[in-house]
């Protein structure tokens, strides 16, 4: 195992690069900032690739570990490492940042260098969340990554951006504070370490577990988001610029789910089992209730935002039935949602750049003038619908199969997403793309340019690859998931 700081490089190269871009400013019409950002984001992606090629799929132990004391008096460490659960999300983050940089090439009107810098810094911080193994380090990354996102929505956002930003901030900040309290409790209980791996090993009484579980739950449920703490997401998406929506949907929502896997399940296994009914219920509400709300949306971004919440319902459902198929399916669903939701928001961005409206009613017959766009968006719509052969199918299929093994009824209710998902996605598609050309503005639309084809085309390739051959994606997660489920099955209540 060669580990001289690949993870550190993946975190700090984009952050330092981001500040560099910031210092370049918008000189030369922003071209300098553009190319520098592209360079930094591609370099970061290149740095993360060896994580995949050098990854040992046979062990559940942490790999590429870096561990040095940070604040020794409180036993706080700079402790990084990844396993099969975190690997794909690091790659997803660094890859999508490249796409966001490319897609922002021309369509950010003001303060381009600051905009790009925010994404680069966020890139590093998000990678930090996925590989931090020290609770305080995790918390620092967790909170710090919100700052660029606030700025992106608050500065480059739509007309109601202030309301959306404050709502986003209050929700996520209140949630995170309780997580910090739980960390402090665990530290005092543990005695000498903030290591998440140490937290996973300490015995905990039943009621302590419940409290810690609930503290984590609030932090993670807000992030995912789960019903009923989801209402910040549609507002945030509607106001966020395209790139912000892409990162928010594709990566940030995964943080909460990742938290369940890294913290809740292994640290509080007994509470996880005891409160599984609650988690399953909330997940099913997300799948049914949220999907019905998505059907009646009038704003494209809101519709996709609600669809995201419904899709994340499969993820949390998969986690809390504790079967290997369901948990693996949930992880694949997270990854797939990263591709598909990013692509859907980029598609809306393509239309918004041209028409400056997200109202579904303002469109109609777009397929007549944008056939390439229509074909690509059809593919992503099918991914959103979970059609076999696309990535969206794999996760949902595995979650439904795995859930049925444990509880038939939740599987049956979850499978209704097959119908409602098709209803809102294809109805949206029909109203926007099909039909006759509704007015001159639509008639004047230009089809995708080369840059847009590159961005959407690469996502299309991933959606198909994951759908047609998910085996290599799953190979990475098997051992880690098996290890996790083994941890969850052992009670931590001291006898």
């Amino acid at each position: 195992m060669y580990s001289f700081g690949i993870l550190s490089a993946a975190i700090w190269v984009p952050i330092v690069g981001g500040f560099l871009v910031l210092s370049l400013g918008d000189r030369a019409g922003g071209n300098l900032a553009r190319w520098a950002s592209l360079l930094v984001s591609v370099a970061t992606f290149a740095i993360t690739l060896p994580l995949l090629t050098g990854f040992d799929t046979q062990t559940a132990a942490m790999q590429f570990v870096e561990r040095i004391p940070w604040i020794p008096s409180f036993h706080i460490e700079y402790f990084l490492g990844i396993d099969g659960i975190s690997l794909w999300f690091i790659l997803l983050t660094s890859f999508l940042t490249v796409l966001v940089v490319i897609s922002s090439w021309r369509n950010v009107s003001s303060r381009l260098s600051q905009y790009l810098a925010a994404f680069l810094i966020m890139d590093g911080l998000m990678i930090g969340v996925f590989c931090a193994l020290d609770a305080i380090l995790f918390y620092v990354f967790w909170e710090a990554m919100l700052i660029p996102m606030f700025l992106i929505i608050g500065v480059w956002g739509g007309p109601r951006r202030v309301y959306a930003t404050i709502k986003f901030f209050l929700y996520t900040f209140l949630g995170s504070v309780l997580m910090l309290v739980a960390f402090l409790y665990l530290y005092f209980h543990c005695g000498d370490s903030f290591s998440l791996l140490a937290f996973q090993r300490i015995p905990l009484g039943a009621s302590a577990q419940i409290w810690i579980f609930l503290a984590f739950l609030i932090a993670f449920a807000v992030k995912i988001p789960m019903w009923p703490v989801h209402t910040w997401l549609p507002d945030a998406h509607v106001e966020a610029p395209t790139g912000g929506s892409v990162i928010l949907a594709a990566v940030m929502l995964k943080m909460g789910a990742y938290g369940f896997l890294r913290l809740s399940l292994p640290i509080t296994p007994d509470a996880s089992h005891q409160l599984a009914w609650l988690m399953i219920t909330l997940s099913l509400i997300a799948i049914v209730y949220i999907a019905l709300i998505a059907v009646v949306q009038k704003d494209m971004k809101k519709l996709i935002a609600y669809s995201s919440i419904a899709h994340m319902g499969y993820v949390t459902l998969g986690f809390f039935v504790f079967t290997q198929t369901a948990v693996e399916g949930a992880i694949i669903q997270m990854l797939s949602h990263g591709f598909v939701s990013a692509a859907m928001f980029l598609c809306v961005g393509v239309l918004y750049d041209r028409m400056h409206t997200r109202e579904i009613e303002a469109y109609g017959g777009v397929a007549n003038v944008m056939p390439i766009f229509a074909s690509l968006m059809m593919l992503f719509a099918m991914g959103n619908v979970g059609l076999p052969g696309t990535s969206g199918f794999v996760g949902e299929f595995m979650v439904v199969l795995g859930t049925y093994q444990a509880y038939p009824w939740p599987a049956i209710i979850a499978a209704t997403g097959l119908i409602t998902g098709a209803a809102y996605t294809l109805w949206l598609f029909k109203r926007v793309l099909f039909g006759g050309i509704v007015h001159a503005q639509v008639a004047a639309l230009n089809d995708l340019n080369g840059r847009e084809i590159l961005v959407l085309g690469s996502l299309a390739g991933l959606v198909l690859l994951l759908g047609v051959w998910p085996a290599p994606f799953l190979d990475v997660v098997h051992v880690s998931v098996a290890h996790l489920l083994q941890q969850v099955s052992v009670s931590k209540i001291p006898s």
Partner: protein
Amino acid sequence: MEIFAWLHSLPPIWVYLLIPLAPLAGALVAGFGGWALRERAHWAPILGVAFALYLSIFVLLEVLHGVSFYGNVYTWAVFGNLPVHIGFDIDSLTAVMLVVVTFVSLCVHIYTIGYMHGDPGYARFFSYIALFTFSMLMLVMANNFLQLFFGWEAVGLVSYLLIGFWFTRESANQAALKAFLVNRVGDFGFLIGIAAIYHYCGSLDYRTVFAAVPGLVGQTVTILPGHRWSVLTWIALLLFIGAMGKSAQVPLHVWLPESMEGPTPISALIHAATMVTAGIFMVSRMSPIYEQSATALSVVLIIGAITALFMGLIGLVQNDIKRIIAYSTLSQLGYMTAALGASAFSAAIFHLMTHAFFKALLFLAAGSVIHAMENEQDIRKMGGLRRHMPITYLTFLVGALALSGIPPFAGFFSKDLIIEAVGDSSMVGAHFAYLLLVVGALVTALYTFRMFFLVFHGKQRMDEHTRAHLHESPGVITLPLIVLAIPSLLAGWFFIAPVGLGDFLDSSLQIRAQWNTVAEIASHWQGAGVFLLHGLQAWPFWLAILGIALAVWFYLLHDGVPAGLSTLLAPATWVLRKKYGFDAFNQWVFVRGALLFGRRFWHWGDESLIDGAMVNGSARMVARAALSWRRLQTGYIYHYAFVMIIGLVLFMTYFMIWRG
């Protein structure tokens, strides 16, 4: 045979792989190269499908020599430690389906050159139908439930794309969406069924699952509290919900008539000959499961029989030529389903085969008529076309006779076999089903010949302009008609002995001896000739003759009779015109219901309750609290210091008393 010799030198799996991949390659060439190829885009799909047909015939000949294959191509994924593969199961059932699918598909491809000539979506259309052929072949060749489900949903996608092919038409988009959603309702059941199979059998592989099935006999599952169901009945019924969606059985049939919004070639290929028979194929493939559940078979039998008669009745009052044929397709699918319920799987597959030929023929001939009539589809505005379109007329007549079940046309053998099998069946509901199917024979002949006479005979009711332009269609359109007319005439006579009555499909099917009605029939009337003679003395044949006679009387001799009858039977025709109210019910309950709940959840749940009361409410509360607590922020340092000290004291007290 000589032309197949070189294939023996290939590894078998290559041959099987090439069958679906050839049309896929054609689809990709037409799809990605369409902008450059334009009206030459048909070459790649046609070559691909022709090659697939050639290979399918080779596979069929091999299967006749006792070759079969069961193996995997690649590991799709590993669930935990269970590998799930993409692979092929090549046996007699698959071989029959391969030849039927590729043959009809090739005819439709060639026909499309003429039919879609001049359409701006020419290349796109070829890309879609080749993609459909690929998906359908993957479906019938699957050796596991994952691939089956892949093919199942992929054909649904292409069907959706093709129904909405002319996407500027609102009605076409509406029909496409409806088709997809109704199919998804079926797929919902299908998916749960697969989940149940995965749970109980621990595999998605056909052979492993079928091997596990006998061990599940007697096991029960409690889905609703207080009701214990047999696991196998539960699985069989869930899978059948999928079949009801795809094969358009009541009450999931509502999408099929509206799918006629798509161009006619795909009505022939997808919505008559192949895709809609996927449910029939699937249930036959799953015969080891269905044979373990008398309850499931009874349900299948009764649903099929109801669809067969009641959908046929609607066909009597339709005036759109394509919709009449669509209702006849629903009705014929009902016959096939009823055969499944009577454990007469081979009869169902036999009818699937003959129906694929004669129904594709009827649709393509109808397309030829529509083409000549300049896109007019209303049969009340046609009449007397036989003089202008002799080839279309004669081939349509062959299709109509086959559909009506007149010997020696293909439909007679297969439909009569089904009716006989249901009559001999001992399933619960078999008597009821038999009655419906026999009456259905009369209805079928009546609506078929009503359409036939109104289109081709009698007065010419079209306008002057259209009449002046009436012409026989070009060769690329009439050639497929002639090619399809041959099996519509002969397939029954030649194939009843091996496929319908014989043992050709036995290796693919598992049938319990006491339910094996086909074997019973075969022991009485072995061979086509004997079967034909028997058929001439049976009810269905004479009812079909009566149906044609009525059509002659109503529509050739006394035009006034139908109008008089429909006023006399006004309530009945009203019910039929409303299609028993299924559409209205779905619209009111499901569509409006979903929208209503969506809006209520959104405005009341999200906006008022969560955002209004909880989020913004708590924000307001904080604001109000801040107003009163603002007085605490005096700005004097000693106030703050005092508060801090108090806090520290409380904190320490807590630690000393409770933690110390």
